[in-house]
């Protein structure tokens, strides 16, 4: 690994990447929505060879006592062995929990869904939004792919039919009402290797880098969530530079959602 690390560091010093990209160039991104027929909202996101499948499930349940008039948002991610030889079955590892939590934080703190509109009856019944993230192939940067998949799936999701008197959700029948999505938070992940910064790390770069910083931003340039990983550190100037770049790069990605 140290051989590859030195090589990547040398390339970055020349403002180059292994796959011919510039340091702050994202791989090719493609978003497909409505890929799962039975799901009220789904998306498949590809960033280069990284592929993530995201599904939304809507259910009716009881709200939390401290937020009686707000719907519930639950994001779950699973690193299945299909995606990479590094993933194993069994209880979730820290990486899987981090992926779910960071994706969750971007959506939640970016106020992507108007949770108050998910309320059916205050204190008793609200819509519960479950988002399931399944990486299909891991070639690095699962965080960005998952976050993009989650927001793309939410944006196209519709409510299933709900019979209020019988308190029954008809999961197979969809209405035309869309979910109250009011903001589009976009996550961008930057890596740092031997003092050089770069966007959208690949699997090999992820194995070799010192640290990474993921930033979620909104249309108006608000930074709504952050996550730092790896053992290395960032200076204040680097964080500010990354923030500026994150706002700029997320604008390009947001165009793909429309």
């Amino acid at each position, binding site marked *: 690994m140290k*051989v590859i690390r030195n090589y990547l560091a040398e390339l970055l010093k020349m403002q180059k990447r292994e*796959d011919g990209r510039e340091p702050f160039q994202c791989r090719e991104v493609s978003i497909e929505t409505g890929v799962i027929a039975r799901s009220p909202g789904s998306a498949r996101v590809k960033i280069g060879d990284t592929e993530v499948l995201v599904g939304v499930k809507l259910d009716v349940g009881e709200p939390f006592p401290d937020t009686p008039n707000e719907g519930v948002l639950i994001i779950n991610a699973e690193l299945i062995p299909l995606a990479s030889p590094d993933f194993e079955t069994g209880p979730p590892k820290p990486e899987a929990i981090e992926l779910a939590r960071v994706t969750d934080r971007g959506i939640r703190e970016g106020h992507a869904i108007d949770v108050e509109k998910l309320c059916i009856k205050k204190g008793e019944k609200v819509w519960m939004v479950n988002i399931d993230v399944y990486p299909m192939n891991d070639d690095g940067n699962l965080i960005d792919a998952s976050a993009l998949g989650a927001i793309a799936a939410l944006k196209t999701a519709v409510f299933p039919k709900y019979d209020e008197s019988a308190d029954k959700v008809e999961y197979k029948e969809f209405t035309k009402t869309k979910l109250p999505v009011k903001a589009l938070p976009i996550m961008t992940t930057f890596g740092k290797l031997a003092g050089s910064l770069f966007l959208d790390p690949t699997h090999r770069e992820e194995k070799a880098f010192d640290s990474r910083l993921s930033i979620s931003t909104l249309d108006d340039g608000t930074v709504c969530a952050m996550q730092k990983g790896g053992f290395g550190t960032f200076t204040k100037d680097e964080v500010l530079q990354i923030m500026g770049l994150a706002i700029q790069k997320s604008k390009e990605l947001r165009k793909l959602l429309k």
Partner: protein
Amino acid sequence: MADKLFVKDHDVVIPGEELAEGLDYLPAGKAFRDGDKIFASTIGLASVKGRVIKIIPLAGKYMPRRGDVVIGEVTGIGHSGWMLDVNSPYPADLNIGEASSEYIDLNKTDMTYYFDIGDYVLCEVINISEGKFIKLTAKYRPYRKLKGGNIIEVSPTKIPRIIGKAGSMIALMKDATGCEITVGQNGLVWISGQADKQAVVARVIKFIEREAHKQGLTDKVKEMLRGK
């Protein structure tokens, strides 16, 4: 009984597919005989050369053979040698006596002076025990520690295409980029030279791996190298 051939050269075959009937044809590689019929045991391309029917597998893990030149990553240091990962399901061991032609005094020398964890070593398979334990040697030239450069992993089944006929593909890449390229039979390729040129070679090798089953590869590679 008439001998029959059911496949052409370069046909894609699947496991269990009947390739030929009759005793005139000879199975080789991943083809096998059952009674008077020859079948395929893996997915790959059929190769019919005279009476010999062979299958060139499309994918597969590296299976060590004596005499193979491989690149291994040092994963552990023991009392009298190093443990290497040679990209194979089986463990590999480089004994201290096989590491250098000079005498190494274990009481005085730090073994990491020769090979440290994470180093890549070019070595040769000298023996595979019954328990599939691989014994390596790095005693003589050109076996050595690979310093610097870049290591990429490709499917071991595509190695012949990357090397080309009598090393023609490698020579093509070397001439165009000035990089040094060492290919291990186990699917690891070491590239050394200017960093940006290394990246070009790595991309070309990945391209060859992807397009290995197609014809006219040399021309496409030439075009790629000219474009960069």
